[in-house]
């Protein structure tokens, strides 16, 4: 139990940023950049990601609370620290985890204007909003909160473990315009979600008795797929979840769309919509739904010697009738969190030539600056981030990029990345919020992407 709590607290305190990969986006012609915008141009003839090592990304951050706020060795009472944390956070805060591991990433140039890419990656994507009212009720009770309505609308979470098989095309329409698209098949091993909940719990001074308790307008639903087997037993074997990411889970489809447009030789606009798709959950489904209202003001004694009423049972029966919990195995659809990327890049500096797939040479500028907008649609909110970046190409095979990002949580997020190629082997590494590396325990956010590719130009 203690370990579970530590994990929960860790997750709560490491509010993870949305899947913003601002350093990776449109950087150094990396194949992984195509997963952020299928229309980003490259000069590759072929690329093959090193299985498992080609792409690993994870993002961790915290909006308000740091691990040190709770677990620093400071001789403060842990109860006081947790209480302070609970009062600091708001219902707008959320926790989120996103980790992707590429198992396959390949690309091949079909012709001068067409580059095909495909692959498979596994993803863990979870977001949980901070249900402040529920946690205050759980930790402090209702005694001190007469007339306060504890709301269930703050309860919102979504947890996905899935595999994604994808194939995309990058098509150069003309010298100015490149379009891209990617088709995805999702295989969900696990989905837990609860959104659009409502209802309140309020204790007020009563009329017939000292207090009256109102549970009002409750409409809540918890959906799950993949968590229970056909015998209604919880699946605890991790291998079973991993296996189901390989097209044997609940399936869904999705698309990525992208565009790159050269306004002039030095100014480029690019944009993408990622994960426009859904998963149809119909295997191993178990849902719970609560709906109704309930008023409780105690048991009214009648002092009727001829009556043998069981008031306690009557209250329970009325609760079950007026606020029932219904279990079902109905299939349901969950939408993928769609992401938007938009970037404006101005290239300048020394003009050099790089060799292309067909042994021709293409000019490129050694420096670029620009701005990148990112947004992701989440169950209860939309998260946005704005990034300014500077990119430097030291040679045709060595690139570096620094970013400054403002988002919902931080105005001081500096990231850096580097990509270089030795022979045909490309290495890349990117770190977000690098200032936090001075003390990871008190980091607001940490994110990184690492990988190795085999690239033929």
């Amino acid at each position: 139990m203690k370990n579970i709590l530590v994990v929960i607290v860790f997750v709560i305190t490491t509010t993870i940023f949305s899947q913003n990969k601002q350093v990776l986006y449109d950087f150094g012609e990396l194949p992984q950049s195509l997963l952020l915008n299928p229309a980003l141009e490259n000069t590759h003839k072929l690329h093959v990601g090193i299985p498992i090592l080609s792409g690993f990304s994870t993002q961790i951050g915290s909006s308000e609370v740091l691990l040190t706020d709770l677990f620093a060795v400071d001789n403060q009472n842990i109860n006081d620290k947790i209480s302070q944390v609970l009062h600091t956070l708001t219902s707008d805060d959320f926790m989120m985890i996103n980790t992707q591991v590429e198992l396959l990433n390949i690309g091949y140039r079909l012709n001068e204007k067409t580059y095909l890419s495909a692959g498979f990656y596994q993803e863990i994507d979870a977001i949980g909003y901070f249900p402040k009212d529920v946690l205050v009720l759980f930790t402090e009770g209702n005694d001190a909160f007469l007339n306060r309505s504890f709301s269930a609308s703050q309860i919102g979470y979504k947890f996905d473990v899935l595999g994604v098989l994808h194939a995309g095309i990058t098509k150069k329409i003309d010298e100015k315009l490149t379009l891209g698209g990617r088709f995805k098949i999702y295989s969900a091993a696990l989905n837990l979600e609860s959104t659009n909940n409502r209802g309140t719990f309020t204790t007020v001074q009563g009329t017939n008795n000292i207090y009256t308790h109102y549970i009002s307008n409750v409409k809540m639903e918890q959906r799950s797929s993949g968590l229970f087997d056909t015998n209604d037993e919880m699946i605890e074997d991790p291998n079973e979840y991993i296996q189901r990411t390989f097209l044997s889970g609940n399936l869904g489809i999705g698309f990525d769309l992208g565009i790159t447009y050269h306004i002039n030789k030095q100014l480029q606009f690019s944009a993408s919509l990622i994960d426009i798709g859904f998963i149809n959950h119909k295997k191993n489904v178990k849902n719970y739904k609560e709906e109704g209202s309930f008023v409780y003001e105690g048991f009214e004694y009648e002092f009727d010697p001829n009556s043998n009423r069981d008031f306690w049972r009557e209250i329970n029966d009325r609760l079950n009738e007026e606020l029932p919990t219904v279990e079902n195995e109905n299939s349901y659809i969950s939408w993928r969190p769609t992401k938007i990327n938009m970037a404006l890049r101005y290239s300048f500096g020394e003009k050099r030539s790089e060799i292309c797939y067909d042994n021709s040479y293409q000019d490129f500028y050694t420096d670029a600056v620009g701005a990148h907008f990112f947004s992701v649609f989440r169950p209860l909110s939309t998260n946005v981030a704005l990034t300014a970046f500077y990119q430097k190409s030291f040679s045709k095979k060595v690139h570096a990029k620094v970013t400054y990002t403002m988002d919902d949580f931080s105005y001081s997020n500096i990231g850096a990345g580097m990509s270089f190629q030795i022979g045909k082997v490309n290495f890349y590494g990117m770190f977000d919020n690098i200032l936090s590396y001075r003390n990871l325990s008190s980091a607001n956010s940490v994110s990184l992407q690492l990988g190795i590719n085999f690239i033929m130009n």
Partner: protein
Amino acid sequence: MKYSSKFSVIASIFLFFSCAESLDFNQIDDYVNKPIFTASLTYFTVVPADFFDSTGTIQQNSISETTNFDALQSQFVKDNLVKLDLDVAIKNEFDREVTIRVEFLNNNVTVYTFTPIIIKGNTLNYKYLEEIEIASNSAILNTTQVKITAELENTGIQLNLNDPIEFEFKSSVTMYIESSF
């Protein structure tokens, strides 16, 4: 190779020379969750007629009611309840003293009894608080029923059956929980 050296240096800086302040996750062992929940319990309003038999001629000086009460049967409550407060609010418009006895029973056997609550006649705003420390009254955790008895003072004069006066009883329970992980 000079760039790969630079990359190695940068990666080393991030991965190997990053720092982390010392943390003590074992502090969670000392965390005690202490919520205080309050809920209405029983209530009733009786008039003089309630103290008479079905013929309406013979006054009974004592009436009682018992109901099942399973709130203390939960294992979580048994393990973590440290204190129980029972608040009572009474309005006695009767012209005589009324004594209220509250008993906690397990299969009709008393496991805890309130100090009798004696309310003088014409007392319109009487408050009473019974504080029960579970450590010294653990038998109360076996409660499965609550019995309330209302006793009229024997003044020798019967109540007026048709008198519109009331005796009103309200109560609530406050549960102090202390749970750790």
